[in-house]
Each structure stands twice: as C-alpha cells, then as structure tokens.
C-alpha cells in the first residue's frame, strides 16, 4: 500500500499523476455525462477534445473552452465513474480540474471558474442554528 499523503496538496499531486498515467482520453466519461446539454456547445463537442482539456487543467495549463464548459456544468452525477474503463474516478478528475480552473492549485492569471461557496456561508449556518437548536444543543453538538 502506498503511504498516505500528509497534506491535501500532496494527495492532489498523487491523484493527478495517477490520472494522467492511466487516462487514455477515450472520452467515455464525457459521453456518459447527463449534464452536457446544459453547457454551451457541449452537445456537439468531441469527447476526446473535452477530456484532453480537462487533463490540461490537471497539469496547470488552461484547457480548451469545451473543457471549461464541462467543468461548469458538472453537478456530481457519478455516471462518468461507472463509464470509465480504466477505473478512474472521473468525477474527481473533473473536480480537481475545477480546482485548477479556480486558481486553487497555483495557476496564475484570471480564474476560469469562481469558487462555489455562497456569500456569508458560515454566518448563515450559525444564524439558522440559533433558530433551530437549543443553546445546550449548540454547546454540545456544534463546538
């Protein structure tokens, strides 16, 4: 068993290396995606081209526009995982591609994607908690 990574970045590096070494760019993950009709031009996009773009993002190189569209419409439906003949977690591949396109892995320049976190996320969570939990529950369950 390979040793566990010590940090999230180290794990992502391992995941990227493994994916790049095994992915054949067959495009089956993209073909299985139920969301392609929601992305600009994705219905007619060449699956191999889209996947090549995602792999570019994994290598810290801006991918093609088709790949950006796919990153944008992924809603984590998992169909790509079942479709991959190489056993790659293609949904995670897309997610890491999103991270790269957000600039989270170190790619410089204007990010192609913005973060997913809602405005005031934790303040809103805490505010709703105040209305739905007793002070005792807050103290015991949420600290």
């Amino acid at each position, binding site marked *: 068993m390979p040793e566990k990574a010590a940090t999230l970045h180290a794990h992502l590096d391992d995941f990227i290396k493994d994916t790049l070494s095994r992915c054949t760019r067959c495009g089956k993950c993209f073909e299985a995606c139920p969301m392609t009709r929601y992305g600009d031009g994705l219905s007619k996009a060449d699956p191999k081209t889209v996947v090549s773009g995602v792999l570019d993002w994994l290598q810290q190189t801006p991918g093609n526009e088709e790949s950006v569209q796919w990153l944008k419409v992924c809603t984590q*439906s998992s*169909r790509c995982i079942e479709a991959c003949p190489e056993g790659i977690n293609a949904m995670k591949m897309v997610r890491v591609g999103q991270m790269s396109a957000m600039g989270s892995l170190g790619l410089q320049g204007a990010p192609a994607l913005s973060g997913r976190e809602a*405005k*005031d996320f934790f*303040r809103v*969570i805490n505010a709703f908690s105040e*209305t*739905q939990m007793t002070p005792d529950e*807050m103290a015991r*369950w949420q600290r």
Partner: protein
Amino acid sequence: MTDKVTFWYGCNVVRHGDIIHSAIALLEAVGIEVTPAGGAGYCCGTAKDGNLRAAEGMGKRTVEKFNEHGTGQVVSWCPSCYRHMNAFMGEYTDTQFQLSHFTQLLHARRDVLAIKLTNRIERKVLLHKHFGFHEVDVNPLVEDLLRLIPGLELVETETTVPGHMCSALSRVPAALKDATRAVCDAANGAKADTVATVFHSCQRLLCALEGSEPFKVVNYVNLLTESMGMTTRDDYKEWKLAGSEEAVVAAVGNERIAAMGEKLFRDSILPELLKQPSK
C-alpha cells in the same frame, strides 16, 4: 455494528432542525447511542475548492474531533460530507473511524424500527430521487423504510434526476428547473399527495412547491417519526411559504431575527426565504 456512533449531520441541514431531531430520534429508537456533531465547527470543507488551505484546515480539524469522540463510527447525513470524507479528507488524515451513511444504519435495523412505527399515515407518497450519490444507493433503502409505515402508499417511479442532491443542481439553474418540473410531473401524474425528499437541500429547494402544487413536501425522516408518534415542525418551510417580505418577517419573528442578526437576515437570509422554486 457498534451501538455508539457519532452522527455527523453537516452544515446546511441546520436550516432544518426538524430533520436533525428526527434523525437522532430514529437512531435512538433503533437502540443507538448518538453523539451528534455538525454545524460550522464540523464542516468538511467541500465548499472550499477555491481555497484549499482553508479546506485542508477544516478537514483536519473535523477528523481530529471525530477521533477524539472515540466512537469508531461516524454516520453521515449529508451526501456531500460523505463524499468529501471519502474522496479527499480521508486521503490525507488519520481517520480512526468507519464512515457509513445514515440510511444504511437505519435500513440495517429496520426490523427494530418497524415495531416503533405504530401510527398510520394515510398518504400517497412519491420519493424524489437523485442518481448521483454513487457511494451509497440511498433510494431503495429509503423506499424500504417508507414501506414500513402503516397506511402509507409508496408510488413506484422511474423519475430520477442528476446530481447527488438539489443543491448540486443549483449551480446550473436550467438543470434545477428541469429536475423540479420532473418531480412535479411525476407526483401529479401519479396523483401523489406527498413528495418525500431524501436530503435536506432537496427539502430546502422544493418545500415551497407547496404554495403552487397540490402536494406536500416532507423529508422522509419526518414521515417515519410521525409514525412513531413524534411531532415535528418544519419552520423553514413555513417561512418559505409565507410569501411577502412582511409575512416572512412576521413568520420568523423579531426574536429569531435578532438572534440571527438583523443585517445578516436582511442581506442573506430574507432573499433566500423569498426565492421561489423555478419550474
């Protein structure tokens, strides 16, 4: 499986205290000693893909706290938390526990649960299903649980929608709209009087359909606890259904608005409560 578990309910579910309290009551009803944990202090960091340093800090902190609980079993409610623990957090932390999903645990003890479900619930129920939670096949588990309720008629439906829950679709508004339309069509086609949601974000995003559709929207855990004789109240749905700004403010009440913080309520919470589902 051990009788002691940490019940990790997550962050966004805190809008629905009724779901959290029902879920805990159900675990206790099947003989499990529950240590609940959730809210911002137990965030998995899944929403922090734009800031991985923060995501890592949250992930490590949450895993450390679970290890300190010492139960050896973490039972997750939220499919995003479950997914994030499996695919990311658990890959760089020393997890000293097994992870399972709430539906799996309850389903495994359904014989014990069935004895507690004594109240008849005369409803015709359609389960709102997503197909994206590949880690755990929750839909048949929940359908089995709902079939335990005396009086409840479960509609057979092939309608399933993308994503692992509705919040995943909200990033693609046209897809959320299609999914919402699909559940309305399926429920009305079957003449169901109730749509049961599996996850909190579906309850959050669909509950206001009650204002324009002939069916009720209820999370399945509340149907189970109702059959156990427990009363729950979905405040969030009441607030969403209030309608106008004045009515929402009156429904939430000054005391709770003060507890939330007036400015935060006006800036972030009120707009959320006024937003109606698109279909």
